[in-house]
């Protein structure tokens, strides 16, 4: 189905000045579009990807493990679709992952939906490192809760790892046989565990169907049970008048002599150039795409890139170095099934204990271990067996694993950055982003400690074999920090409402705005911040400079 069919696109109308132009139709772009459109603002969004119908996803098909490695890979460098842009990651310890399309990376994300913890907003005050955020958990909590209702979050209230608050709107998803084993182990150890909140429906909700535990969330949810803004936000935004133009690659954000944003120049899939005028611009293109676009938008008024008087656009890239610890069990766990968000989580070792030799911590999330192709090919830990013992190797793995994913807090470092490549380009000839990223000594010590503890957890649960991937290269889902939020314009890019210090009608609402990374999956926080920013845009709409 074409976008024209879906929204009755009128190009002449789309070229009229918008109240707000949003660049990127993923998580944060969808949240902002819905809020602004519901408030009656004229919203236009440019998205370089397309709509994807649920029938395209391969989770119920025989070839799901094949297509997961190419067509539905989360790596833009592997997919290499025209709407993707390549990322030069040769100088990065971790490869970035993302997806271009309506719903953005949520189409392929796991669905895990934890929040940052209160201490994450006060890292400088508590631990003397990095920076405090200009807002607190309590200020953000109402937005987390509103988002949970819009998204349809399943979970169990009352987790003592967090302050009290509203219950998730839906009951928790099942934790599976593997989750039960590890939960019993943590009960014996006296360690924290809790059913993980997930942006996956445990029951029918707002016209969407519940999860069927197919275990293929990260290749797209065929049921539509996993939330993504193409399901949860864009239909509502469009119903309220928002215009979403797909196949639209933004080339640069334009500014006027006063330095205000006037809209964006974009290229359609045939390479024709267009201009979309707007009185305000919202950038929602992820922690790599956003700094890339701001750097591409330099002008005489903004010679080092748009909104970059601090010099911090593209700097302080954080990607959550990720380790994986898998336990193999004698029992049949059917661990190819279940939702792939996380069945259970543990915050036992999340907060700083300096006796461990590092500051901050990591969240653990327990996940399924895939199908037979995954069991047969070389494992994350590099294990491979061919010959007669191959059969035993597969039987020992398939359906008998439980895997702790360890997200370590990544402290900001200006050496970790995104810049424009001088050689690589996308299919439109625009410079590709180039990543420079090293895992810090603090992160390495943190991961090693957590690998040891996670191994202890799985051994207590009865695992006979532990396999470790101490740093997974293809784990860069969480692209954060490259246009940080703050009060001081000399040390931050956007203010506490996500508005650029340098450009009064420009907002950055994706993970770029993060001050620190925390040690949890960030999408719920990205959405909460975006909703908070959108509320502010609505409340201050009459104070915005009128450009057109």
């Amino acid at each position, binding site marked *: 189905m074409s976008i024209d069919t879906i929204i009755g696109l009128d190009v002449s109308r789309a070229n009229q000045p918008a109240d707000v132009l949003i660049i990127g139709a993923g998580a944060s772009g969808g949240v902002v579009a819905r809020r602004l459109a519901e408030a009656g603002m004229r919203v236009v969004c440019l998205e370089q990807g397309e709509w994807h119908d649920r029938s395209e996803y391969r*989770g119920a098909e025989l070839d799901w493990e094949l297509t997961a490695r190419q067509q539905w890979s989360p790596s833009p460098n592997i997919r290499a679709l025209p709407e993707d842009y390549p990322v030069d990651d040769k100088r990065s310890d971790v490869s970035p992952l993302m997806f271009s399309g309506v719903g953005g990376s949520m189409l392929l994300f796991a669905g895990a939906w934890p929040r940052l913890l209160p201490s994450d907003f006060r890292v400088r005050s508590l631990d003397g490192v990095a920076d405090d955020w*200009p807002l607190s958990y309590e200020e953000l909590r109402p937005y987390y809760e509103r988002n949970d209702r819009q998204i349809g979050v399943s979970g169990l209230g009352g987790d003592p790892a967090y302050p009290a608050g509203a219950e998730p709107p839906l009951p*928790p998803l099942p934790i599976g046989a593997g989750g039960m084993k590890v939960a019993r182990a943590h009960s014996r150890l006296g360690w924290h565990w809790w059913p993980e909140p997930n942006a996956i429906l445990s029951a029918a909700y707002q016209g969407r169907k519940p999860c069927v535990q*197919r275990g293929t969330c990260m290749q797209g949810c065929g049921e539509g049970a996993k939330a993504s803004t193409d399901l949860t936000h864009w239909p509502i935004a469009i119903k309220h008048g928002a215009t979403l133009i797909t196949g639209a690659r933004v080339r640069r954000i334009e500014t006027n002599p006063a330095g205000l944003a006037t809209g964006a120049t974009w290229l359609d899939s045939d390479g024709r150039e267009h201009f979309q005028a707007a009185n305000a611009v919202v950038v929602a293109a992820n922690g790599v795409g956003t700094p890339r676009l701001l750097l591409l938008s330099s002008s005489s008024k903004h010679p080092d890139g748009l909104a970059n008087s601090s010099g911090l656009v593209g700097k302080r890239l954080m990607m959550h170095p990720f380790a994986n610890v898998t336990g193999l069990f004698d029992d049949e766990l059917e661990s190819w099934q279940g939702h792939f968000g996380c069945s259970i989580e543990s915050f036992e070792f999340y907060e700083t204990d300096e006796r461990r030799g590092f500051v901050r911590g990591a969240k653990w999330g327990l996940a399924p271990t895939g199908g037979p192709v995954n069991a047969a090919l070389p494992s994350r830990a590099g294990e491979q067996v061919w010959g007669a013992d191959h059969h035993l190797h597969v039987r020992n793995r398939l359906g008998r694993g439980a895997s702790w994913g360890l997200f370590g807090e990544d402290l900001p470092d200006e050496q970790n950055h995104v810049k424009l490549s001088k050689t690589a380009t996308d299919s439109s000839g625009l410079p590709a982003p180039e990543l420079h990223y090293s895992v810090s000594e603090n992160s390495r010590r943190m991961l090693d400690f957590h690998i040891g503890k996670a191994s202890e957890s799985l051994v207590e649960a009865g695992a006979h074999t532990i396999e470790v991937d101490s740093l997974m290269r293809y784990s860069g889902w969480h692209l954060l920090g490259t246009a940080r939020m703050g009060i001081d314009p000399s040390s931050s890019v956007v203010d506490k409402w996500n508005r650029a210090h340098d450009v009064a009608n420009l907002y950055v609402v994706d993970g770029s705005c993060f001050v620190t990374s925390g040690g949890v999956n960030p999408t719920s926080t990205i959405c909460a911040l975006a909703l908070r920013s959108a509320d502010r845009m609505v409340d201050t709409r009459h104070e915005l400079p009128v450009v057109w």
Partner: protein
Amino acid sequence: MISMPPAFIDPGRLAIFAALADHLIPADHDMPSAGTVVNRQRIAFVLTSRPDLGDPLLAALRPELSHIPAARLATLATCEPEYLAALHLTVVAGYYSDADVRNRIGYPGQVARPVHALDFPAYVEEGLIDHVIARGPIWRNPAPPTGIGG
């Protein structure tokens, strides 16, 4: 998806493929060998789903490399790992997409299992979160903002 032509792999390369597949996954432990399972039809299944594997697979099967499977695999591992990866994936995906093989390993596929959300969770009934609740809050109460770095 693009269907791969039936004659995509010539008989010579098909014989090399079968020998390599047998070497990687031989018949044993009540399981058939990959050389017998991954026939032209199963290869076509793989390449229809993943046309990008065609060229590297053909390269891995080119006649000028050794016809001794272990020697060919060693050469590929050392000199052309991307071709070896394509071979491995074709063998494995072809093998484990076969209905008889899946039946023998007890894998039904990614089947739909509806969630019964209103069932009382077994972990609550078993008391597995009691110790977590009994310990009380573990989140760290942050100090007031200092403005440092803000």
